């Protein structure tokens, strides 16, 4: 269960209170009736579905009820940024990340525990 920072409640809340709203920043045309079939297909069906940074909508449906946007890494599921609905797509999400969250990778050294001196051949646990 993810922990999601709600920009309106200004704290992290359990995923059970939220509903995902799919890809963000897909604007509905002001004159939708005039859209071409291709444009409508792109608007309603085509999705980026990236392996990496996902710009997505969430609604704090069992909390404040607000929709907001988040930037999440779809490989690690780490949230990099949340922002209110209507705010522009953040330019460089890798800059000034949210301050230390439970997802943060803290190198053992910073936790004042030495990694055993021997050099280790890194192996992916998910072989």
């Amino acid at each position, binding site marked *: 269960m993810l922990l999601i920072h709600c920009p309106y409640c200004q704290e992290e809340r359990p995923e059970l209170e939220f509903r995902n709203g799919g890809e963000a920043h897909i604007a509905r045309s002001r004159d939708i009736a005039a859209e071409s079939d291709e444009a409508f297909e792109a608007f309603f069906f085509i*999705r980026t*579905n*990236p392996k990496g940074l996902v710009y997505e909508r969430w609604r704090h449906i069992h909390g404040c009820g607000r929709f907001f946007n988040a930037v999440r890494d*779809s*490989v*690690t599921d780490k949230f990099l940024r949340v922002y209110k609905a209507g705010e522009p797509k953040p330019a460089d999400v890798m800059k000034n990340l949210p301050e230390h969250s439970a997802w943060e990778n803290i190198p053992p050294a910073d936790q004042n525990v030495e990694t055993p001196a021997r050099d280790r051949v890194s192996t992916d646990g998910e072989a």
Partner: protein
Amino acid sequence: MRKYSVFAIAREAMRGHKGWDQQWTSPEPRKDYDVIIIGAGGHGLATAYYLAKEHGITNIAVLEKGWLGGGNTGRNTTIIRSNYLYDESAGLYNHALNLWDGLSQDLNYNVMYSPRGVMMLAHNVHDVQVLKRHVHANRLNGVPNDWLTPEEAKEFCPPLDISKRARYPIVGAALQRKGGTARHDAVAWGYARAASARGVDIIQNCEVTAVRRSSNGHVIGVDTSKGFIGAKKIGVVAAGHTSVLMEMAGVRMPLESYPLQALVSEPVKPCFPCVVMSNTVHAYISQSDKGELVIGAGTDQYISYSQTGGLHIINHTLDAICEMFPMFARMKMLRSWGGIVDVTPDRSPILAKTPVPGLYVNCGWGTGGFKATPGSGHVFAHTIANDNPHPINAPFTLERFRTGRLIDEAAAAAVAH
């Protein structure tokens, strides 16, 4: 290919099983191929096999970024059925079902196809309307699917609780007797062995990093972790990773990839004779040959490639299982895992040519791809070989999302795939 048989085993037993050949070779890639299949899961390997067997194309490479059969093929709950509502779906899945029957002999590999019956439960008036609509449509499509009373259902599956105690009592069921299960690894390995024997190169640990196209737009090959590999035609059969690969060819897809979890219990003596699915209480369950209860959970609500999911999803699924089968509450979850399923807007697959000449795509199976493996590979091979779809997969185009000609089993039937 050395034939498998009980006699072969006996012969090998004499010498400590040291004489078996490799089931498939692990060659280095050649410079170029007639066809490259991206993704060595069941669908991709089956495609290669039928290209070689039925279309005489053997200069094929199947590229796999991990190990063959390591994606959804090796992570699903192995349910096989074809009782779909629409003619298009029934045609596709029933084509597969007919191939399952006899696949072990065709591949000379025991895929353990076990037609133990797939039962879908109705818990209310709406379920009855929906399932009966299926039963009648299936009958006229030549897909036997019987309607059972609760008593008949319990007779077929004794663990069922048909009392009124249940929160959502069982009021009836649809049973496809030819539905059942198969051994997922054996399907991947059997196709790999048979394809390899026909000259197909299966290249594992070979990740595709780019799709190359000529000035006229036609595909010419792929860049991989093992270098450039040329190809006249490319078939993308990469399930959850389809969007990523198609993006490399400049094609944006109507797909979203979600984590899907499943779990097994500790092995117990035979206690569950068939496959049971309930859409209303959100659960499906069967028992494996090994004795484990195999239970499919739901998808998480967000896009993810992490192959992991939340505990609350498992939680929700086991609520349903123990509600339907309260005697299983003392059983233990032995192992849970996640896969990445690619879902289309109408929950039906895409098996088609693409706007890019020489590029073909087989994706969008959502949570239900395993059952289609032989049929999917068979018609996709036809599509690649002839640069034209087989009549069976002709409706499963990319264009349907523009025209609105969807094949929306979910909307029409609200039955879990």
